[in-house]
């Protein structure tokens, strides 16, 4: 299935096509009822509403693409699937968000304001890549270095240590080297 | 297993099944019309012969069709109880129950004779029916028991 590599920058297909190939969702079928936006828990934190994202994919010109790939909304989607669950056209806006997010990431169009989320994901993946597993402490450490956001949640940390919910010792899997190889392999295929 | 072999063989010889459908004028013929007005696409292998009612369809017509080189025959009329002529299709069904033996005697594989009820409202059912029959006959291969002269491929 072509779609498994969401985007092939070599002959950049339209976003609608990439979405169709990656998820089987035909965005052209969206009739803009807005039920996705109506049910979206994160909508009030978004610069573009879910139904507007669907609309911009339909428009599909250069301006629309720029707007889409740089928008913060992509990084505000919690992936809760409420939109997908209730879409009267049986489309899958959540999956559309996933694909757009990956394209935005791969083409490095992600807006600076979203660096925090990106930083989180990067920190998370770095941790897994090196340790095979994720441990909150190394994650938080990496995240804070990357996001330069040192102050938030400092209050929580001690309490978490106290409750054994944060451990200094990184949580490593024996086969972490192998996991590292998987990361490398995926990177080669442009998938991650 | 054997089936799959014949399929591949037929793929080579480009065998196109020749299927004759005896349909009643009131239900199945109208159902086929509905398939048309709904633009439902189906295999072009079937040739319809219209009769007033399945009650008119004499077993001998079916034998004649096979003898005439049909690879399969479809007999289709109204649903039980919906017959335009109130009971024609019942008479038909009663006759067909004994007809099987006659077919076997004539050396015709009963599976090449299809029965179905398609009402005036069932355009989709008609299209699906024709497609599935064509597919099956494709797999089963040409029927040349009666007329060995007609070996294709």
């Amino acid at each position, binding site marked *: 299935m072509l779609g498994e590599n*969401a985007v092939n920058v070599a002959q950049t297909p339209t976003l609608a096509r990439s979405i169709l190939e990656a998820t089987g969702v035909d965005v052209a079928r969206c009739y803009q009822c807005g039920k996705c936006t109506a049910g979206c828990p994160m909508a009030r934190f978004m610069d573009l509403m879910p139904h507007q994202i669907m609309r911009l994919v339909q428009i599909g010109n250069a301006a629309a693409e720029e707007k889409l790939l740089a928008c913060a909304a992509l990084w505000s989607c919690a*992936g809760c699937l409420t939109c997908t669950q209730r879409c009267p056209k049986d489309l899958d806006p959540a999956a559309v968000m996933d694909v757009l*997010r*990956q394209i935005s990431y791969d083409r490095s169009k992600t807006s600076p304001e979203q660096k925090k989320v990106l930083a989180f*994901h990067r920190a998370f*993946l770095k941790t*897994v890549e090196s340790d095979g597993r994720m441990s909150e402490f190394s994650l938080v450490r990496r995240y804070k270095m990357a996001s330069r956001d040192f102050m938030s949640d400092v209050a929580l940390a001690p309490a978490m240590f106290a409750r054994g919910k944060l451990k200094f010792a990184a949580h490593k899997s024996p086969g972490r080297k192998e996991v590292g190889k998987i990361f490398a392999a995926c990177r080669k295929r442009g998938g*991650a | 297993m054997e089936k799959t072999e014949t399929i591949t063989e037929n793929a080579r010889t480009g065998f196109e099944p020749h299927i004759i459908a005896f349909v009643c004028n009131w239900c199945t013929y109208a159902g086929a019309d509905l398939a048309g007005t709904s633009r439902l696409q189906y295999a072009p292998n079937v040739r319809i012969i219209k009769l007033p009612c399945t009650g008119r369809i004499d077993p001998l017509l079916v034998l004649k069709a096979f003898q005439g080189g049909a690879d399969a025959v479809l007999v289709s009329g109204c649903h039980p109880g919906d017959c335009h002529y109130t009971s024609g299709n019942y008479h038909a069904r009663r006759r067909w129950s004994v007809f099987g033996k006659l077919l076997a005697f004539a050396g015709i594989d009963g599976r090449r004779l299809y029965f179905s009820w398609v009402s005036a409202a069932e355009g989709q059912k008609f299209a699906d029916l024709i497609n599935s029959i064509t597919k099956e006959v494709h797999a089963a291969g040409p029927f040349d028991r009666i007329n060995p002269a007609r070996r294709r491929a």
Partner: protein
Amino acid sequence: MKSIGYYPGCALACSGIELDLSIRELSRLAEVELCEVADWNCCGASSAHSTGHDLAVALPYRVLALAEAQGLTEVLAPCASCFSRLKGTLVRLRRNPEMLEKMAGLTGRPCRNSVAVVNVLEYLNRLLKDGLAGKFTAPLKGVKVAAYYGCLLSRGEDIVEGDDAENPTGMEAAIRAAGCEVVPWNFATECCGGAFSLAKPEAVVELSAAILGDAEQAGAQMIVTGCPMCHSNLDMRQRAMSAAGRRTGSMPILYLSELLGLAAGIAPKAIGLDRHFTDAMSVAGRSA
């Protein structure tokens, strides 16, 4: 003695430790052996998912492959997030065999995709069906509970099976078995902000506060959940909620497995009740 594969996942070693403890305790009580998937790796969670298709499949794939190689037929993934990643991958591979080969190549581990993945609700209901309820010695009589499913235990076609996505009931039998009362409320499947705990705490605080608020309005004394992400958002963030002026007071957030553990008379500390940020021990007091 029965047995089932066990994939604790990363969270259960730290922030979700109570879930791990209570699951292990209940399994011991129900005489089910948990066979941990040796050398398991992180499922990638929403991070791999958000940034790379292949990686999002490859990481869970390796876990499934390991489990299969280990001779396991079923794997319990108590963390709702891990569950949806593993099950999602499994379903996807079932639909798309080329993907299976591709992954075998990518990870160097062949897999027939033969392992079934079980979530925490399915597992606990199974234990109850096999007679765990009979061992309940300390039911929490009359405690009003709001059953909270969140996203990952309610939505997702062919990932969460056999329950109504809009009005799920998968926890109710278990909660009643523990002697509690299930209160009807509106936010059972609302999102708590999920993985944004670090990156968008303001959103998490707002969404989680709304959930707590509705539970309170409905007269619930505690919220029961099955998801570590939901749990840490609802449990850890309550102080932040008050700070942000979103709500006052605190409401205990228990894992369903903790609730059952209490009903079974297991020592509160043994199931990690003392590790909560809200006063969960008070609940322990209620169990007779």
